[in-house]
């Protein structure tokens, strides 16, 4: 299933909504290369906690980041869904493991608000802001900041699992 941006304009952008640990996030559809659905995940021994494993994608071995792990949410054995994200030309391709993928949501750019200053450092490093949609907030994930090498650089997501952060609050969004 390839998600293609629909009727994007100057002030409207399309986001792919996804769930992780009961929370709703959005990610710019243009950065998504493919949504793989449930893919066979191969664990890597001794890998940092945020690495969920590696997957085979188009003849490449792609490192997948577990969104639950970076958000400090509990591990789950339940259903998971893998997205393959494409970055800039010279950057590595990487995967993102989420609980489920919703669909494409069109949001208006002007409804975007920056991260609140009270947000904890780790979340600030991952979110690029939130969109005020009629049904609630849609937190935008920045794929550049989810890149495994970037996560390693920040040093905020080491091997230790962090307790789930409360500052975000529960958010819902009707699709």
């Amino acid at each position, binding site marked *: 299933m390839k998600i293609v941006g629909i009727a994007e304009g100057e002030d409207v952008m399309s986001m792919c909504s996804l769930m992780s640990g009961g929370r709703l996030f959005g990610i710019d559809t243009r950065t998504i290369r493919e949504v793989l659905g449930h893919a066979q995940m*191969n664990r890597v021994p001794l890998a940092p906690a945020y690495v969920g494993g590696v997957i*085979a994608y188009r003849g490449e*071995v792609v490192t997948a980041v577990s969104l639950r792990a970076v958000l400090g949410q509990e591990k789950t054995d339940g259903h998971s869904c893998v997205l393959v994200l494409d970055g800039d030309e010279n950057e*590595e391709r990487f995967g993102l493991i989420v609980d489920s993928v919703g669909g494409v949501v069109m949001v208006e750019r002007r409804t975007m608000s920056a991260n609140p200053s009270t947000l904890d450092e780790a979340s600030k490093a991952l979110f690029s802001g939130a969109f005020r949609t009629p049904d609630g907030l849609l937190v935008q994930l920045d794929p550049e900041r989810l890149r495994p090498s970037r*996560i390693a650089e920040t040093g905020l997501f080491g091997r230790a699992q962090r307790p789930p952060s409360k500052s975000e609050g529960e958010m819902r969004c009707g699709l």
Partner: protein
Amino acid sequence: MGDVDELTKEFLAESLEGLDRMDRCLTDLEQRPHDKDLLGEIFRSVHTIKGTTGFLGFERLERLAHAGETLLGSLRDGRLTVNPELVGGLLQLLDGLRAILRLIDLTGKEGSRATDDDSELIALMEHLNRAGDGDGESSAQPVGRSLVAASEEKPVAAGGSAVAPGGASEKTLRIDVEVLNRMMNLVGELVLTRNQIIQSNGDSATFPQLARRLDSVTADLRETVMQARMQPVGHVFGKFPRMVRDLALSCGKSVRIEFSGQQTGLDKSLLEAIKDPLTHAVRNAVDHGIEEPRTRALAGKPAEGTVHLRAYQHNGSVVIEVEDDGGGIPTARVLEKAVERGLVTQEQAAEMTEREAQQLIFQPGFSTAAKVTHISGRGVGMDVVVANVEKVGGTVEVESHEGKGTLLRLRVPLTLAIVRALVVRSGGQSFCLPQSSLAELVYVPWREAATQVEWIGDAELFRLRDQLLPMVRLDRMLGLESEGTRQTHGFYLVVLEIDGCRYGLVVDDLMAPEEIVVKPLSPVLREIGLFSGATMLGSGSLAMILDIATVGVRAGVRSLSAEAVMPDQSAKAASGPVAATSSSSSPFLIFEDHWSGERMERLALPLSVVVRIESVAMKDVEYVGGRPLLQYRGELLPLEDRGGVLRELAGMGADATATVLICQGPGGAGRVAARRMGMVVRRVVEVANGDLMESNAEICAERLAMVNERLTVVHEAFPGGERLRDVA
């Protein structure tokens, strides 16, 4: 090359290729001055460059190319004749053009600073051209002289630029359209097969046939892609005639270069990797290998030296040989210098065979001093050559006969991407072990595990044919949960050998050996260090490829004592009259013999130096010049017999056996240390942990160790202390 557009990039790649071709043509032209086709080709190349530069707006390049074209035009029309000065001038022109192209590649501009002035070169072109117009001998003379002067500086520059990475050439590849068409056809077929599989809806009747077809299409496709990556070795050889010509000229020698097997294909990335080492080797052959013409004449050789480059395939690897008929490596001088530089001791040097001595040129210390290189004949950074070749999984050998010449053999794998590997399972996951470092496989049933596994501190050792092998449990190392099946099923021991260190990797199960395609890992995972890549297995799952060397190092196989720390023992030892040198203890092999007197003494060797314990029949011990020698697995080992065991046994018939410890050679590092020896002992007692003592001449001249609370003499050639102190 940030701001260089596509068109310019293409022009650069094409022009540089053209210039390389011209280099070859010009050196050929010197041999065959009347070849019209050659001249035509050179003329066309320069003309093409000139035409394109005008179009792209590179004026400086155009002016220079124009001057060259005029000169070549006269040459083609027969108004000039080919002579060394002319060829030298034209080669200088090529260097000039190349320099500008490099500048464009780097900066996007052709340069306009004062130093970027070509008027001298252009004047030279005009001068050479005028020489043909008949103003005769008088003017040709000074030009000839200035050229010699110029070409004396040139080789350095030419050599330097040859070593510098070629920018665009590493990233782009020219492929025959034929090959590309074949690939496209195969991809078409692949799509067709896929459609058929989808349409068959899992129909079992047609499935075997489709699977077979898919198999053949993929095999063909793989073959074609590999082929496309293959480049003839000749591409690298191409620049050598020019280099050899310049170099020979500058050292006043006459050298001819010959090639064979230029069509041998090698993977593009590997070709790039061996380019520098090979250049180095050829330069060495001319610079140091080939003698001066007079010396050659005295030795009864033709004045002109020959460097022969040979490439061929052998056993799944490509062999490239650089052979010269020069003076060879003067073994005596090499040894002298090696001793002087402290690489080997006088005694070691005396025992070395010619071949072993020649291997010394690969030692890092050997490259730095100019004096050494000048006399030894070889060795300008030979260690760098080895390092570069080994980086891509290749090897370097040297064969030399004094007075006859030297042969340097580079052996590189055909391709990097596909390797043979053994798939093993540990902690419920699959891992790949490259077959190249696999020595043997041992199955240890649960019943026998208890008797064959020995413990020293926390370190497990496996008794394999009387040799103690450190054991590394893969699941424990990787933090995986062990499956617990070992309790009833035993385990497999994969004996691995790399860089002279040997250990047994404990795994749960062995799977089939497979040809695996190596895929790189992302930087985050590379940082773990234990995996060199990943691969997709036949079953569709991914498996990590273990980096055998790092696994060994992590487990402390080389720094043997890291695991075997017994703090309580070292504490006791420290309270004695002689203080222990380090807080960590290490395993020793304890044996009994009387070395210093009639009394039986307890003696020890660090376990790390003992490779095997052998029972040797007296009939197998041979004597050369009074020294006992043992032929052992194709190696000739000197035997040391301080206790006089051999003398005692000599009277007891040919079948009497002596216990011989096969030891890693003492002292040195790297290649020299790989030399082994045998030590004849009376009785092996045990393996135990102990602490090395500070040497104290007042108590005892020998090195002592505290083992099981008893003083033990450590053989002075193997104190094992250096490594111990490293750890502490």
